[in-house]
C-alpha cells in the first residue's frame, strides 16, 4: 500500500481556483516531485496532507491513516517544510529549535547539531532579523530534527543559495537511500530532475501527468543522424554535442530539459 495516498481530492475555491480530482500515490522509499507554477494547487494539496484543511470530496491517507482525523499520529513520523516560512519572530533561532524539540518531545538532539553544521547555520540571532535563506535553513532543521520517515517539502530550497541548494539535494539523496518517502513540491526543474523518481505535474488545480522522470524525458527526446565531412570532424562533433560517433556519422539526441517538457503541459501546445 502506498505511504502517501491522495484520492480524487477536490477543493473548489470558485473562479477556477482550487484543486480538482487530484490523485497521487507515493510508495515507500520513493521521491515524488510535485511540479507546478504558482497558484496551481500544490500547497492546497499539501495542506490536506498535513491535516490543516478537511477534504470536501475525496480523501487522503498517510500510512493508511486519515490525514484530517489522525494528523497528530501521522505527524509523529512526518517532517514538513512549509512553503511560506513563518516562525515565532520573538524568539532566537536557537530558542526556537529548543522549543520545537521540547514541544515535539524529542530526546535526542544530535540531529539538530548535525543539520546546523551541514547547512552552516548559526541560529543565535533573533528570527525576526534573519534573512530569507536563514529562515529557510531553520525550517529545514525543524523538518529533519526528529528523523522522520516521511517528508513533505513545499518548495524547500527557496531562498537558498546554489551551494546550499546542492547540499539540500545531497541530503534528499541520502534520505532516499535510507528508504524515506518524500514528496517534494517545486517549480525548480533542476532540483526535481536531480532528486525525484516520479513527477506529477499540476496545472490549474488538475494533475496533468504523472510519470517517471525517464519516461517524461524519453517522450520528449529526438534523435538525429548527422553526416560530417571527415571522421576527424565527426569525432569532435560527437564530443562537443554528446553524440555517438560512427565513422563520419554522428547520432545526437536532443534531450529536452524538464523545463521544456513542463512548459509543454503548462503553457499548452504553442510553447512546444
Amino acid at each position, binding site marked *: 500500500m502506498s505511504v502517501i495516498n491522495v484520492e480524487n481530492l477536490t477543493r473548489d475555491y470558485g473562479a477556477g481556483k482550487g484543486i480538482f480530482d487530484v490523485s497521487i500515490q507515493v510508495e515507500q522509499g520513493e521521491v515524488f516531485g510535485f511540479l507546478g507554477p504558482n497558484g496551481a494547487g500544490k500547497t492546497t494539496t499539501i495542506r490536506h496532507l498535513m491535516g490543516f*484543511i478537511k477534504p470536501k470530496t475525496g480523501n487522503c491517507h498517510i500510512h493508511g491513516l486519515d490525514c484530517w482525523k489522525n494528523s497528530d499520529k501521522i505527524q509523529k513520523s512526518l517532517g514538513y517544510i512549509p512553503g511560506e516560512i513563518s516562525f515565532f519572530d*520573538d524568539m532566537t533561532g536557537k530558542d526556537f529549535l529548543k*522549543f520545537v524539540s521540547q514541544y515535539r518531545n524529542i530526546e535526542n538532539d544530535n540531529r539538530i547539531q548535525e543539520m546546523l553544521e551541514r547547512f552552516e547555520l548559526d541560529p543565535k540571532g533573533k528570527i525576526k532579523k534573519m534573512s530569507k535563506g536563514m529562515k529557510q535553513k531553520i525550517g529545514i532543521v525543524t523538518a529533519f530534527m526528529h528523523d522522520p520517515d516521511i517528508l513533505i517539502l513545499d518548495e524547500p530550497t527557496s531562498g537558498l543559495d546554489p551551494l546550499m541548494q546542492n547540499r539540500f539535494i545531497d541530503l534528499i539523496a541520502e534520505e532516499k537511500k535510507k528508504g524515506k518517502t518524500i514528496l517534494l513540491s517545486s517549480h525548480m526543474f533542476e532540483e526535481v530532475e536531480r532528486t525525484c523518481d516520479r513527477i506529477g505535474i499540476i496545472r490549474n488545480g488538475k494533475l496533468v501527468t504523472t510519470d517517471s522522470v525517464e519516461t517524461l524525458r524519453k517522450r520528449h527526446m529526438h534523435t538525429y543522424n548527422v553526416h560530417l565531412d571527415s571522421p576527424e570532424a565527426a569525432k569532435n562533433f560527437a564530443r562537443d554535442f554528446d553524440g555517438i560517433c560512427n565513422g563520419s556519422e554522428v547520432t545526437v539526441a536532443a534531450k529536452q530539459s524538464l523545463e521544456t517538457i513542463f512548459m509543454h503541459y503548462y503553457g499548452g501546445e504553442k510553447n512546444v
Partner: protein
Amino acid sequence: MFNATLYKREMKGSLKMLIIFAAIISMYVAIIISMFDPEMMETLDSFYEVMPELMASVGMSAGATSLIGFMISYLYGFILLIFPMLFCILRGNSLIAKYADNNSMVTLLSAPIKRRTIATTQLLVLISGVLLLIVYTSGLEIVIAEINFSGALVISELLKLNAALLCLHLFIGGVCFLASCVFSDTKYSIALGAGIPALMYVLQMLANAGEKAEVIKYFTFFTLFDANGVVAGESAATMGVLALLLGAILLYTIAVTVFCKKDLHI
C-alpha cells in the same frame, strides 16, 4: 490535553502584560483604598448630588459607607473591570488568531500534538493570566486595607466579591477566545474580541446613567455582575455570577470545538 512546553512559552509571553496591568492596578488600589475616609465620602456624595448621571455612569454611587462599599463604588466600576478585560482582549487575540494570521500556527500543528491540546493549552494560559491578576488584586486589597484601616475590611466579603469578578472576566475571556478561534484574521478577531466587551461596557455605562436608560441593562452581560448584591449575599446576584461562569464554560467549549474543526489556510 495539555502541552507544558507551549504553556511555558505562552506564560512567558503573558508575563510583561501581567506586570504592567498589576502595576496599574496596584497604583489605583493603593490610592483609592487610602482615600477611604468618612469625611471624603461626604465630599464625594456631594459630587454625586451635583452630577449623579456622570458619577453613576462610571459605576460610582452615593452612600457607600463601609470600606467594601467604597471599594465597589470606586474600584469595581471601572479599574478592575477595564484592565483585566484589556488583558483578555490582547492575550485572547494573540493566543490563537495571531498564530493563524501570521502562519506560525504551522509550527504548532506540524507536530504530533492534537489541535484540541493546542487550544486547551492556550485557553489555560488565558485563564491563568486572569486568575493571577485577580488573586494578586485580592492579596493587595487585603494588605493595603489592613495597613490603612485595620479590621475595616471583611475578608470573606472581599473574597466573595473577587470570585464574582473572576467569573465575569472568565466570561469576557471566553468571548475574546471564541473570537480568536473563529477568525483566522486578527483584524476580525480583534474587532469582535474587543468590540463586544467594549460595547457591553458602554451599554452598562448608559444603563447606570439614568432611569430612562435602565432598560439597557438587559442587553449587557455586565448586569450579571452585581457587586453590591454579591457582598450582601443576594441570591439573584449569585445566580448572575453562576450564569457568567456557565457562560464562560460554554464559550470555551465552543471555541475549542471551532478551532478543532476549522480549515486553516496556513
